């Protein structure tokens, strides 16, 4: 099977609607097909990977911990919109550390997070074979 480039576009905050969790579950399921997968976090989607989430008070699963498992599934390209962060008074420092182990570099731990400009996002998006929106 030829490898295709899949991008998952996340634009909603977690917990208020089910989009974020659904997206993450689809990503994990689809990971079995070993395609070239990347995730983009735009608009309120950036809140999906914000540090310090605590769901004790709302009785829901804190699935932010699950993003750190993505590296195990060979998913290590998480693009975060610089504009969406700054519009919300956020910066890279507010994002959870999400890392993967680079097989080709003696399993060195590297960040999966890439903060990108709109121009970079445009380019990355144009390279995709499939773009799935949540």
């Amino acid at each position: 099977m030829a490898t295709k480039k899949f991008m998952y576009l996340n634009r909603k905050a977690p917990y208020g609607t089910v989009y974020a969790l659904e997206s993450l579950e689809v990503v994990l399921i689809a990971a079995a097909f070993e395609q070239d997968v990347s995730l983009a976090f735009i608009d309120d989607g950036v809140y999906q990977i914000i540090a310090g989430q605590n769901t004790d008070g709302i009785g829901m699963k804190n699935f932010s911990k699950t993003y750190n498992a993505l590296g195990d599934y060979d998913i290590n390209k998480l693009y975060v919109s610089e504009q969406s962060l700054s519009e919300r008074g956020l910066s890279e420092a507010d994002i959870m550390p999400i890392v993967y182990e680079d097989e080709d570099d003696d399993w060195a731990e590297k960040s999966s997070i890439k903060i990108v400009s709109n121009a970079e996002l445009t380019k990355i998006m144009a390279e995709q074979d499939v773009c799935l929106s949540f």
Partner: protein
Amino acid sequence: MADILGANVDEEGFLVDLSDWTKEIAVEMAKHDDIELSDEHWDVINFLRGYFEEYQIAPAVRVLTKAIGKQFGKEKGNSKYLYSLFPYGPGKQGCRFAGLPKPTGCI
């Protein structure tokens, strides 16, 4: 609803409330499947519980295989070994014994 040592399980035998889990429940579930839990079984069960605690998901089989190999030695990092411990699948049966939900993407 069925139960194991008083804890509710769903139609596939997975715990309904993950906080009900005890070692005795794992032993009892295994006994139902004609398995006596060895140290090797416990290594996998404990690994699965740790993984779930950290990431809030049960790992896919290929992720489990890789991680077990890394932690317990290459000779154990293959599905043949894991299936020898859990003949109904390390994901499905192992996670059930470990008191985890069915792995995401596991049919």
